[in-house]
């Protein structure tokens, strides 16, 4: 019975201990140390923004290159137009007066005769 009473008293003392905790002042230079950490964080976020910008620029360049290459590969090569040259065009171009090739046959015959 006495033990139970002692236990009850101990429990009450322990629960009362919560109320007896005195608030303490923040440690010396608490504000300065905290502001230093905040400053370091600000600096780190600036550095990381710069690094992010660099990564974004590199990614943009790579993207542009990939786009350009894919466009080049997708576009079919243009075949050069086949130029059909008629005999009349040749005549025009070289200003030959006779279109017939009789003169050429005559020449060959002459050569064949002994």
């Amino acid at each position, binding site marked *: 019975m006495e*033990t139970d009473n*002692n*236990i009850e008293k*101990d*429990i009450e*003392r*322990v*629960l*009362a*201990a*919560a*109320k*007896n*905790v*005195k*608030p*303490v*002042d*923040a*440690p010396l230079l*608490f*504000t300065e*140390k*905290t*502001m230093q*950490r*905040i*400053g370091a*964080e*600000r600096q780190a*976020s600036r550095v990381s923004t710069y690094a992010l910008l660099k990564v974004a620029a590199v990614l943009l360049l790579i993207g542009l290159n990939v786009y350009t290459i894919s466009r080049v590969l997708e576009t079919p090569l243009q075949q050069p137009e086949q130029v059909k040259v008629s005999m009349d065009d040749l005549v025009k171009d070289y200003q030959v007066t006779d279109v017939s090739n009789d003169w050429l046959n005559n020449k060959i015959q002459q050569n064949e005769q002994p």
Partner: protein
Amino acid sequence: MPLEIDIKALKAKSEDAFRHLVNAYGKDIYNLCLSIIPVAEDAEDLSQEAFVKAFNSIDSFREDAQIKTWLFRIAINLCYDHLKWSKRKKRHAILQPLYNREDEPIEIASNFQHPGITLENKEHAKVLYAALETLPEKQHSAFLLYEMQGLNYKEIAETMAVSVSSVEALLFRARASLRKKLQTYYSDYASIKK
């Protein structure tokens, strides 16, 4: 009485505004961290970390809430993360549960060094802190915010993002659970002495 804090300047990440915030709430946040982790160096580190986190996430602060309760929430979350990390480290606890079990026994910390506790109160405070550590997080937070930090139900509800009636229920359960654990602890202690 809430202190005058320029939220716009904070959101613009003004150094002066943050210095004012640290001056205004540094003591409260440090004492809050001490009430969860009664080791002065760890509490200092965590309370500074809370302000750094506040600086990084100030854009997410809703202006209808109190800056004090918002800071308290950040600090509480950081302290619980630290507690979980140190428990896991201590017990190699991949196989241990990450949250407190109802039947977890009270273990008195060897590195207890709360500067706000007088020598004659130290033994009881050690037992209290050890018992508090075995409570589920929400009961623990509600108890220490009410009993140690002196917040009212509304402020606790805002800090913990729960209703006022939930705070009452959490406090009731925390006290009942603490009594039960302390009863077991002192009964075991008495039987060992016999």
